[in-house]
């Protein structure tokens, strides 16, 4: 929404975070869910959320409250923000107001890990970080907001459960659930018949960027596990951890035994499915490709952390804004990155999608050509 309240503040905050290495989103809504179902009750919303992962996948999350005007309840708002930070396990909060006396709230801010910031001071910081001339791109590009709204409007109309998931539930799910649900969402979007190719591609890439964040978070404990043991840990973790995984497996085994017994008793026949085949459905079919991706990520962890932002640029700038590939060079110029390596790993995420069957070969080739156009 172009006339969204405090949009300028939010976009400037996002730009500040982006060029400091954060993957950002705005207007994150936290809803109450009961028994996995969405309710109408909204807990709260976050103006700007950012995440940065370091070379060993430690997460640094940041929550920003951006409001214009002066509010009387600044201290109260600090405590609210502190609660949100705790919920998200964020290590930093930013309290951005058009006007605020930073010095007045420094002590409280320090205690709660919140940085009070006025618009003037944000401008100072932008100068200090040489960001004033940096373009507004990706999810904080004002020019694509309307197009983005149209895309999500289509999603809401054609596949509301997926819309609800990526807008709301995703933010409250544990990481392994995020991965499973996002992959399922990708598969469903892939099968939607009444959307255009352009819409499908944007939505799939948008989800892939979130999926990449979740996969990197997922990979954090896997990084230190020897390669041969990764398969076990990855599969167990994807199924909710050792305990939950064992319980689920037991349940499935019990069900199989029940079927074998029933069929034998009732029809005096052998259950036609072997236990091995039956149990092979326990893990998702994409597990082997997922494991391959996690292994590749762990081999290049310092490169992998840039993939979510790269996917974001591809999604918003190349696909939605129809910009030329060269924009990637401009955007990442100051990061001192080996872009070829980032492209390669970004492609590995796409390969995971293609092999797992949720990105079509055509779209896979299309994106690959886009990002490699100026690099080959």
């Amino acid at each position, binding site marked *: 929404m172009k006339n969204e309240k405090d949009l300028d503040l939010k976009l400037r905050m996002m730009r500040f975070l982006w060029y400091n290495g954060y993957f950002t989103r705005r207007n994150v809504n936290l809803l109450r869910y009961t028994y996995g179902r969405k309710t109408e009750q909204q807990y709260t919303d976050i103006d700007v959320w950012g995440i940065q992962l370091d070379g060993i996948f430690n997460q640094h999350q940041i929550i920003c409250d951006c409001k214009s005007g002066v509010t009387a309840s600044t201290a109260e708002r600090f405590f609210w923000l502190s609660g949100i930070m705790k919920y998200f396990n964020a290590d930093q909060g930013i309290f951005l107001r058009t006007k605020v006396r930073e010095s007045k709230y420094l002590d409280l801010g320090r205690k709660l890990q919140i940085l009070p910031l006025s618009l003037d001071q944000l401008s100072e910081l932008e100068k200090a970080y040489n960001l004033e001339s940096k373009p507004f791109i990706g999810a904080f590009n004002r020019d694509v907001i309307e197009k983005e709204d149209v895309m999500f409007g289509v999603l809401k109309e054609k596949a509301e459960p997926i819309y609800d998931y990526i807008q709301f539930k995703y933010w409250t799910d544990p990481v392994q659930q995020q991965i499973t649900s996002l992959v399922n969402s990708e598969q469903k979007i892939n099968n939607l018949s009444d959307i255009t190719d352009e819409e499908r591609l944007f939505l799939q890439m948008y989800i892939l960027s979130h999926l990449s964040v979740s996969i990197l978070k997922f990979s954090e404990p896997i990084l230190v596990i020897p390669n*041969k*043991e990764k398969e076990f840990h990855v599969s167990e973790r994807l199924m909710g951890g050792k305990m939950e995984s064992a319980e689920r497996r037991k349940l499935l085994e019990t069900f199989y035994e029940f079927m074998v017994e029933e069929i034998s008793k009732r029809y005096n026949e052998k259950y036609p499915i072997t236990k091995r085949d039956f149990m*092979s459905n326990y893990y998702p079919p994409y597990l082997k490709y997922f494991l*391959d991706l996690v292994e590749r990520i762990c081999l290049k962890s310092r490169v992998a952390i840039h993939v979510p932002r790269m996917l974001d640029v591809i999604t918003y700038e190349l696909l939605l804004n129809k910009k030329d590939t060269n924009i990637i060079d401009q955007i990442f110029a100051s990061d001192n990155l080996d872009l*070829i390596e980032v492209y390669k790993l970004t492609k590995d995420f796409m390969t995971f999608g293609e092999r797992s069957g949720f990105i079509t070969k055509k779209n896979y080739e299309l994106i690959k050509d886009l990002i490699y156009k100026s690099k080959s």
Partner: protein
Amino acid sequence: MIIMSKMDHAQITAKCVETSKCLINKEAGLHDYDLDVTRSIGDIARLAVNIRQAGSFDLQKLASISAAIKQNFTTVRSDSLSTLEELGWVEIYKEGTKIKRIDESIPPLEDILASLGELWEDKSPTEVDIATVQSLSFLTKKPATKEALISEIGVSNEPFENALNYGVQTNYFGTFESFETGKEVVWTPFYWAGKLEDVQKFLQRQSDEKFNKIGILAKELSKYPGRPLEIIKTEPALLNGGVASGFFPSVGVNDREGAEHEYVFSATPQFELDPEKDIFEKARLIVGCIRHGQYHAEVSKIKYPVRLLRSLREGRIKPHSYAKTQYALLYLNNICTYEKSEKYGGTAYKPIFIDTPENRVYMNVAEEMLKGEEPVLGSVDEPEVQELLTKGVFNYSSEQRYIKSAGKIVATDKFERMIEAMQSSGVYS
């Protein structure tokens, strides 16, 4: 055109790998044509596994890998690489005509085996290719008389003879005369390198009917490697003879009273004459020790062998007074060491895995063997295949490999065939 009996694609690739490994360093000859498809698929599989997860690399790195796996760089660059590109597993970036960079996206092993097996079928293999791959697949479970084998795989006599001829010269096939029937029997001696004589003697005494029983036993053992000898009720005399001759490899673990318990396996390909260097031999030792705890532990028997193996590997096994007995073989073979402990009243020993690249490989294979009984995880059915293709193994193993086989391989009717080929292509006309 011959009708191929249906073979699993993964199995086809595995046999191509075995064949291509046996053809390493062989002089040029007609086998280059006859076994072209099999050899190139085997070579591509080995290359794919070795570059998997290498990311982006240049031509020089590719040359080093080719050298390490003893493949001709020019062939790798011009043939293997383009096949990998067609499969969508690599992307080649050029500057003019020169390759600047290669990006790999090689899929997991399971897909490598399945896709390349399919490709082998699509590439119209020659009858010699077919005879080789089908015979290898058949003979790894049991030997067969020549007629039985020809009828089983359904190829005509001439290509079969050529396949057999190449195989005999490079040791993946062998023949002997049966004492029982007087017939010529074909087998795969490279599964029994180092004990060829005893195994051959054992096989020479068997009839056709016994070969079938051997096949049944081998199948049973490959499904459950390291089965205790005393619980196998199928054909005890045949089994004992097989174990004694080394046809069925076994591992003996002594208990505290000095009584030996044998754990029996089906044979696996052996590219090293020295058992000290044989990966599968070491893996069998590990499996034998784990099985011993499963079947003959004094107090609490092991319920989940794979989990125990992982605990052993990760140093999570608690000290136990019996550990020194159970893992003695691993200690002697430098796979484990002990840590003495008096913590639990009395002397106990905690086995500590010696974490070296070689030991890790042995552990990996042992885990695959133990998984033979596990219903899930979808591991490759033939553990030996997985190991043959495991990254890094070739790098040191292939350098050291020493198979006593001919450096030059010739087709039986080489001269006639060459003349015939040249005449039909118009050279002499």
